[in-house]
């Protein structure tokens, strides 16, 4: 199970993606701060870079397929 920091970044990315807002480090930071969470500073940047070239929608649709 992912750590709290990772989960925080993941949920933030999902929120942004749902509204078709670009997933950037600043936005992830803003969300995490608004939720009153504390994450290690490298996570948001890491997630933003990792997800920048990825189609998040396809991840979501393939959640079930990944299990097998």
């Amino acid at each position, binding site marked *: 199970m992912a750590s709290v920091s990772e989960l*925080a970044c993941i949920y933030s990315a999902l929120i942004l993606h*749902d*509204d078709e807002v670009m997933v950037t480090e600043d936005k992830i930071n803003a969300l995490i701060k608004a*939720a009153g969470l504390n994450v290690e500073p490298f996570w948001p940047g890491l997630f933003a870079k990792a997800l920048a070239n990825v189609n998040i929608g396809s991840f979501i649709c393939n959640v079930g397929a990944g*299990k097998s």
Partner: protein
Amino acid sequence: MRYVASYLLAALGGNSSPSAKDIKKILDSVGIEADDDRLNKVISELNGKNIEDVIAQGIGKLASVPAGGAVAVSAAPGSAAPAAGSAPAAAEEKKEEKKEESEESDDDMGFGLFD
């Protein structure tokens, strides 16, 4: 979906029963609009429930469904496993939004698997 994800985010912050105000604050921080009705529905469904239980239930449901069905389950709430637990609860409200997209993928994937 954004309501479930922001609810989960708020809950992660140690707040086991986030209020509508908490969630709005989160969404406002990135300029995302929140529809009050949907927001309140998500909150009322998830309120007081132990988030880990909800996630565990959701994952259990995903695991027991074949890949095609799982696409439907996860496409309907449109969120990853954590939100699948609230799929039954949120399914109705999400249905209208996601109906168009998920219907098409439903038909294709479903028939393909059960041939």
